[in-house]
């Protein structure tokens, strides 16, 4: 038992070290050539444009349900007019970044792990190295740049459609005044709230790409291994997104005081 605990700990620490090294290499590659622009743009297309429908749908209906649920609670305090404020703050600070990241994680961390995993088990990664190309530079760095960049904008879109969804429900179902809704939305958002939400997006983007690529590049054991890597990538990146969400929220409260 003691032995297995020791080997388990060793294995986990080894994996953490490998992950850190891969992430560090992926970042340092950005500052030197060659740069694979076409790979970066194709990844941006697949990660950013490809995720647009699910991000819009998730953001919109989250905004709708937030408005619907908050109305009952706010009515007790006679503060129904503050619905816009509640929806916008919840979307911008918390739900927009986190839900977008979870959606993109489910769609792209799995995609990266399975794609790179299949390449690993069919020796394509070794073939790339044998042909004189650094796989980290060619495969990981473009995915990292694309995910961080696109998740940032996807989060902004999610926030916007969430607020729009909240507006639609408030006006059509809750009979609130549209001007009032938009006014409270705008008035309640502070600079710090937006910085907080977008900082979360940047960290989540980094996590999704590095975790997805790490599990892909370390796949072992044929097709079964690819399946395992895919599952692990989604589970680990999702959990890390939630943990980072908490840590960043705490840091931002300390920094901005809200």
């Amino acid at each position, binding site marked *: 038992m003691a032995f297995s605990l020791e080997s388990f700990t060793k294995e986990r620490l080894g994996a953490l070290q490998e992950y850190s090294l891969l992430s560090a290499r992926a970042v340092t590659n950005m500052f030197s050539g*060659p740069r694979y622009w076409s790979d970066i743009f194709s990844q941006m297309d697949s990660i950013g444009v490809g995720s647009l429908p699910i991000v819009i749908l998730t953001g919109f209906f989250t905004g709708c349900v937030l408005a619907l649920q908050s109305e009952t609670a706010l009515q007790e305090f006679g503060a129904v007019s503050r619905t816009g404020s509640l929806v916008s703050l919840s979307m911008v600070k918390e739900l927009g970044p986190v839900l977008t990241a979870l959606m993109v994680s489910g769609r792209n961390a799995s995609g990266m792990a399975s794609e790179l995993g299949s*390449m690993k088990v*069919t*020796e*394509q990664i*070794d*073939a*790339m*190295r*044998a*042909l*004189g*190309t*650094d796989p980290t530079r060619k495969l990981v760095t473009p995915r990292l740049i694309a995910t961080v960049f696109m998740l940032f904008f996807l989060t902004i879109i999610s926030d916007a459609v969430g607020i729009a969804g909240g507006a639609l429900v408030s006006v059509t179902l809750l009979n609130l005044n549209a001007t009032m809704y938009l006014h409270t939305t705008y008035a309640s958002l502070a600079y710090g709230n937006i910085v907080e939400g977008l900082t979360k997006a940047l960290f989540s983007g980094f996590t999704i790409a590095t975790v997805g690529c790490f599990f892909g590049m370390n796949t072992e054991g044929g097709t079964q291994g690819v399946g395992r890597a895919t599952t692990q990538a989604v589970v680990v990146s999702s959990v890390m997104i939630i943990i980072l969400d908490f840590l960043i929220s705490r840091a931002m409260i300390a920094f901005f005081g809200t």
Partner: protein
Amino acid sequence: MTTPNADQTQPEPEQKNDGPVIVFDKVSIGFDRGPVLKDISFSLDHGQTLILLGPAGTGKSVLMKLANGLLRPDSGSITLFGQRIDTMPEKDLFKLRSRIGMVFQESALFDSLSVEDNVAYRFNEDGMAPEEAHKKVEEVLKFVALPEAIEKFPSELSGGMRRRVSIARAIITGPELLLYDSPTGGLDPITSTTIIELVVKQRDVEHTTSLLITHRLQDAFTLATHCWNEKDSKMEPLPDGKVDETTRFLVLNEGAVVFQGDTHELVHTDDPWLKEYLA
């Protein structure tokens, strides 16, 4: 045909090395399940073809990956083109590997790229003009007798065709060293012979130094006893039962070298295990 890219600029003159191309000195490596290769020492000279024989699971592929720096040994030293590669940083290895062509066991073609992009991979990485790269790809695909596959994707090709594309990708830059990891593995005898023909053609036309793994003794002896007839463009047996002088053998068993020498020494060995293996 001449080298598809005989006019390539590599190798750089200052990296020229007149000594052996590969030297393994007491190389050992092991994985979680135990040691795989133990105290392996051999060398491979310019223009030679070294055939690596041995039962499955004796570490032949591991040895080949060590020769290319894809794996690093636990102990011992590996010298490639006169440079120690076991301690060389990966960044420098990428440059050195541009002088080596490698054919993987399962071809390892990039399945998201067409045959043309697979074969021209190195040229595209180096930023060669597309028209020039296309011309060279056409030439090399003609060399491996597969010109019609240029626009296809790896998933549309048979096992033998994939292997030929893989050879084309390895030889297109005119490498100084070719590593063939079981080029005939999993292929039917007729297709295997066409692949061996290509290896013989590359050996006799370009005189490329090669390291070749095979588990088919028949292929190994075909390589040793045949040559390429450029006039008739076909492989034929060497006259009077002669053997190719540049072809040598290295036999591995249970992670250790049990034989190294030429064809004559191999067939007249006294080693009981080797006799049984060759029988």
